[in-house]
């Protein structure tokens, strides 16, 4: 969990309770650090105090990290303020009237509700499970590195649509791709070679020149997309 911008005694208390419950908490006192942590894709919830980031800050977080739960903090229970914060994008609102146990339980509940649904991507007999670290073809494990698996996952979840290099880079590496960076091309080249060796021509990564790549899966002459 990330505590965005400055921490306050109240948000510190929530952070302490979350740590006691076994969660990793990062407090970013400066906005650039918080932005960087969010972009890394390793944050699964953000706690922000509207008194520090402003109501517009809550809305901005919601827009910038659509897949990540945004939790707002209130110093005291107020039905109107809870409704306002939920309306502008908060997924949950905690307040000082709740016990630490309830605060932690609510954060965990919102994390469960927002958990990504695409940890497993499938394209015909091909499946990539990021949690288990497995890429399978007809139930047979493919010998891919973690990076190659992530690239394959990102391509498979796009269902045959071309994925732009920049998008692929952001999904797999978690950052913006610098102009001229060939990381995606090199990893796709290696992945292609391994797929040809392990699967043959039934799985192909096609290049759309100047744009990106798309995954085509054929099995028994059926295009499974």
């Amino acid at each position, binding site marked *: 969990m990330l505590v965005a911008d400055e921490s306050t005694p109240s948000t510190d208390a929530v952070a302490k309770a979350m740590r006691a419950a076994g969660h990793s908490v990062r407090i970013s006192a400066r906005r650039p650090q918080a932005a960087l942590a969010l*972009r890394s894709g390793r944050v699964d919830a953000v706690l922000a105090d509207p008194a520090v980031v402003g109501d517009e800050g809550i809305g901005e977080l919601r827009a910038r990290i659509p897949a990540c739960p945004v939790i707002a903090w209130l110093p005291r229970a107020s039905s109107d303020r809870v409704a306002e914060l939920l309306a502008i994008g908060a997924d949950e609102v905690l307040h000082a009237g709740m016990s630490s146990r309830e605060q932690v339980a609510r954060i965990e509940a919102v994390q469960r509700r927002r958990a990504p649904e695409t940890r497993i991507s499938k394209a015909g007999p091909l499946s990539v499970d990021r949690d288990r670290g497995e890429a399978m073809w007809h139930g047979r494990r493919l010998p891919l590195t973690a990076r190659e698996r992530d690239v394959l996952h990102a391509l498979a979840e796009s269902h045959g649509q071309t994925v732009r290099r920049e998008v692929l880079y952001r999904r797999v*590496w978690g*950052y*913006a791709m*610098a102009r001229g960076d*060939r*990381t*995606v091309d*090199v*990893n796709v080249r290696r992945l292609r070679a391994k797929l040809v060796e392990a699967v043959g021509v039934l799985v192909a990564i096609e290049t759309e020149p100047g744009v990106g790549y798309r995954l085509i899966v054929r099995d028994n002459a059926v295009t499974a997309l």
Partner: protein
Amino acid sequence: MRLALVPRTTEFYDLFAAAGRTAHEAARLAEIRFRETPDASVPHSRVKELEHEGDRLTAEIFDLLNTQYVTPFDREDIYDLAKAVDDVADYVEEASDLLDLYRIEAPMEQALEQCRILVETTAELERALGSLRNFRGAREAIVAVKRLEDEGDRVARDAIAALFEDEEVSPREMIRWKDIFEALERAIDACETVAHAVGNVVVKNA
């Protein structure tokens, strides 16, 4: 130390020509390493060997300079030229080493462009250093080196700008590539220093 009165001037020519070939070969291998990274067919140790060969040739030139009464050019010019050529191989080796040190996952197009310029520039240096006996083609090679160095400056500036265009580029990538772009730029700049040194010799002796 005794100074030899019988001139061995041809040895200077041969050693400078060999140093030029060595610098060019180091640049050529470094270019292959960048182009093929992370599955480079050329290990860094081969570039390192050439850098050591460059050091050996420089030491031999200095030894000859210290033992010869008669030298083909001014002693200061020979010293400056030998040191400048040695720097080229040193900087090429440094850039090649960073590929392994920073665990580079894939090349950047701008670095490949810098490598292309570096290979062309060192080819011109080889030509210039091989012409010291009669200076045939030396002026053209010097002009070509200066033109390539200008091109290298433009590519290096564009390369560094590319790292800062988007504020969401990974800081790790920025640190890695800024260092590499600058190392390649130093190697190309060192070629221009050699061209200046050759130019001094040509002006005084041609």
